[in-house]
């Protein structure tokens, strides 16, 4: 049966609201931009966008997927402890959580040692390290100390809202994290558990920090997600699957986004970059991000349709984490309120990963106004272009983005060819499963890429495998006009 459903993308960036409607083939059928007074809410944004699309009533009634790119989410994630109650619904609900590390012989830096003290005291009720973890060859670093783990679980039972678990080399062998999770589940019941191997990244301390932040944010994010879904019910969109922009240019279903809120950091910028490339029909390009104040604030690179990401090492709320986010090269203008061609040229150069000119695309609020202020030719580019609807790039980006999933693993390369093949297959399947968990259509999620990066100075050569899978967002409940369903996606 032909698919006649539509996807709605909604972007909120300061007081700028944009919307895009895409059909089942991913073609854009309608776009709108608005500037609202004050600080618009997602509710206000949905209202404004749906009002603009009244003329597309037929398509609007067939919307079964709604995706959001909300730049404000960056602040939610980065400054949870500073925001005031009216700006920030999470401020009083972060934590308390428990932090557990598996790997006793890592006492050189205990958990949370790199955290600002106030933030740590606010978020964490208790932390401990017990024996466990893995070695690079997959064997145990230490046998898992189940007794100590059980004691710890009992000591925090009833007093914590989530537990963060980080094992040494868990990205290689998550066995101990999973075994710990089973014990915590038994002792603590339904308390959310965040395990570091789901977050990924090599580097115990940074992965642990990201895991702890994720655990702290999980509950408030779930609460906000539920509010957002209630709001959509008011707009007769309760039947639709809801997605959020992630920091790698993909989207994630609301249940996954709420349990993995860290990945939303930078999502709005990533959606803008993807949308601008899409609008311009380019696979390889640079995208100049505008912010609605008449300046370009950063330049990003798109390679093979994917925004370029940082290598990790993202500091969030003063805490170093392993999070990989879209690489934004800031434009350091001498005069911050004007277009500084010299600063732009330099940012363009730094955003590239290799010599060779690329088109420079504008994207973001007010992009069209800026198009006239910029020279058509800029050193290092194939020209400056403002694609049609560039100011709605973020909405277009989320309306057309796939759902993504990743998996990582370290693999010795001197192993038997057969075992290497089975490891590659396992990683590929794990990435596919991750995409499905994040909300990809299980029928159509595919692994797109397996990267192998050699690790240096090892006595037995090994590579880090990283697989990426993608699929279109899973469809919501098909509805007929006048009879919208009100299915709710379960959130914690």
């Amino acid at each position, binding site marked *: 049966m032909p698919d006649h459903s539509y996807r709605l993308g909604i972007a909120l960036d300061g007081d700028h609201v944009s919307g895009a409607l895409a059909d089942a083939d991913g073609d854009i059928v309608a776009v709108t931009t608005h500037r609202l007074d004050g600080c618009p809410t997602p509710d206000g944004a949905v209202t404004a966008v749906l009002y603009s699309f009244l003329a597309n009533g037929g398509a609007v009634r067939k919307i079964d997927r709604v995706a959001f790119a909300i730049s404000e989410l960056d602040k939610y994630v980065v400054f949870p402890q500073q925001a005031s109650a009216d700006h920030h619904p999470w401020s009083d609900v972060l934590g308390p959580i428990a932090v557990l590390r598996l*790997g006793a*012989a*890592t*006492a*050189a*830096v*205990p958990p949370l*040692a*790199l955290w600002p003290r106030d933030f740590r005291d606010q978020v964490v009720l208790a932390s401990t390290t017990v024996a466990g973890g893995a*070695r*690079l*060859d997959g064997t145990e*670093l*230490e046998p898992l100390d189940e007794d100590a783990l059980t004691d710890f679980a009992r000591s925090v039972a009833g007093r914590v809202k989530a537990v963060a678990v980080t094992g*040494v*080399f868990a990205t290689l062998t998550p066995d101990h994290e999973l075994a710990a999770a089973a014990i915590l589940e038994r002792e603590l019941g339904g308390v959310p558990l965040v395990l570091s191997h789901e977050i990924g990244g*090599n*580097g*115990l*301390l940074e992965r642990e920090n990201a895991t702890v932040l994720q655990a702290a944010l999980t509950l408030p994010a779930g609460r906000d997600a539920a509010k957002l879904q209630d709001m959509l019910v008011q707009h007769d969109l309760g039947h639709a699957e809801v997605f959020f922009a992630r920091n790698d240019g993909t989207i994630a279903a609301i249940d996954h986004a709420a349990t993995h809120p860290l990945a939303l950091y930078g999502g709005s910028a990533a959606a803008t970059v993807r949308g601008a490339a899409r609008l311009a029909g380019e696979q390889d390009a640079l995208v100049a991000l505008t912010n609605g104040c008449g300046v370009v604030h950063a330049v990003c690179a798109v390679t093979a349709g994917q925004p370029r990401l940082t290598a990790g090492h993202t500091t969030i709320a003063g805490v170093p984490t392993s999070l990989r986010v879209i690489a934004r090269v800031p434009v*350091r203008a001498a005069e911050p309120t004007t277009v500084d061609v010299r600063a732009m040229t*330099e940012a363009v*150069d*730094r*955003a*590239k*990963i*290799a*010599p060779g000119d690329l088109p420079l695309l504008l994207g973001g609020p007010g992009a069209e106004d800026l198009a006239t202020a910029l020279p058509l030719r800029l050193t290092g580019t194939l020209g400056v272009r403002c694609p049609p609807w560039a100011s709605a790039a973020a909405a277009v980006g989320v309306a057309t983005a796939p759902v993504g999933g990743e998996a990582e693993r*370290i693999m010795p390369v001197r192993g038997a060819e057969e075992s290497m093949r089975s490891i590659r297959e396992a990683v590929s399947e794990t990435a596919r499963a991750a995409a499905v968990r994040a909300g990809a259509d299980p029928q159509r999620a595919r692994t797109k890429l397996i990267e192998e990066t050699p*690790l*240096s*100075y*090892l*006595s*037995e050569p090994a590579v*880090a495998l990283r697989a990426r899978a993608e699929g279109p967002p899973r469809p919501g409940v098909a509805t007929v006009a006048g009879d919208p369903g009100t299915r709710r996606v379960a959130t914690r």
Partner: protein
Amino acid sequence: MRFDQDNLAAFARGCDVLGAGGGGPAGQSLPLALHAVAEHGPVRVVELSDLPEDELVMPCAHLGAPDVSVERIGTGRESVGIRRQVEEHFGRRVAALMCTEVGGYNGPGSVALAAHAGLPLLDADGMGRAFPGVEQVAMQVAGITASPSVLADEHDRVVMVRAESGEWLERLARQVTSAFGDRAVTSEYVMTVGQAAGAVVHGTISTATSIGRVLDECARAGSSTTAAVDRLAEEFEGVRLAECRVTRVQPVKNVATATVATNSRRTALLEGVNRDEGRWLRLEAGHEYHAVLEDGELRATVPDIITVFDVHSGEPVPVQELRYGLRVVVLALPSPPLWRSPAALELVGPRAFGLALDYTPLTVDHA
């Protein structure tokens, strides 16, 4: 001087400058040092003259794969077992721990090891910078015996290797490190305080701290990276070679060699910007930056310390992170004098890193 919560960050910054693009990031071992002094109290930095002549100086370093040590961060207590083994073997007391390599990770790493072992840290190291080879230390030039090699992992397992030559020592020690899982803390070239007088690079712990303090002052004053590098050049008798954009980084393929010092090579082309517009520099790199050429002439060569700073972050750029498009300032600092003898240059001169170039001392303009 004592290392405590207040001055370790500056020291780490200086260690990265002395790393010359290698040695691993000092920022990664800084948390280990900070936690160690929080737990055990400040680490005293001492001179040889503060120590009894016939007691021992114990050089220590972290060895292995960076991808392992960021995950298995260890306990810092590895030095306790090493110290016990060294004292038992030599039948003498260890008077101080010495950093084997001040450049990069091992700088702050040695503070952590000293704190846990309850030892003061000698104001000296084996290199005055970073080098990849175990034998590329001042002690080797001075004729100190490398053997025994004492290696420990984070589970208090300790192995002592004794061998008649450096080759055998390294071959066996490598097997031990491999068995530990590519991460170990090791000690070689243990010597008496008396022997150490002519066999180490003196004052380098202080130098690294001073470099870090200058950078901190510049950062507080809001100086540009170029201005900060100018100040380093002025205060430490170096040269600011140029401010550039990186226009190409090319790995050199087919380096058929087994020795660590030469098994990784890349070459980069830098185009001068701002007041250096019109200049072109070629940068040769291995695990560290090894040579800078301009107009067919050598501007700087290893063992002089070539450090590349990111103009925007102000941080030294490790060789592996040098890439197209970066805006950088290149600084060269003079190597410790002991590396300039013919025998020493055989060990650490350009040819030791696979470059068919002779060492050319820095020309410092004292205008």
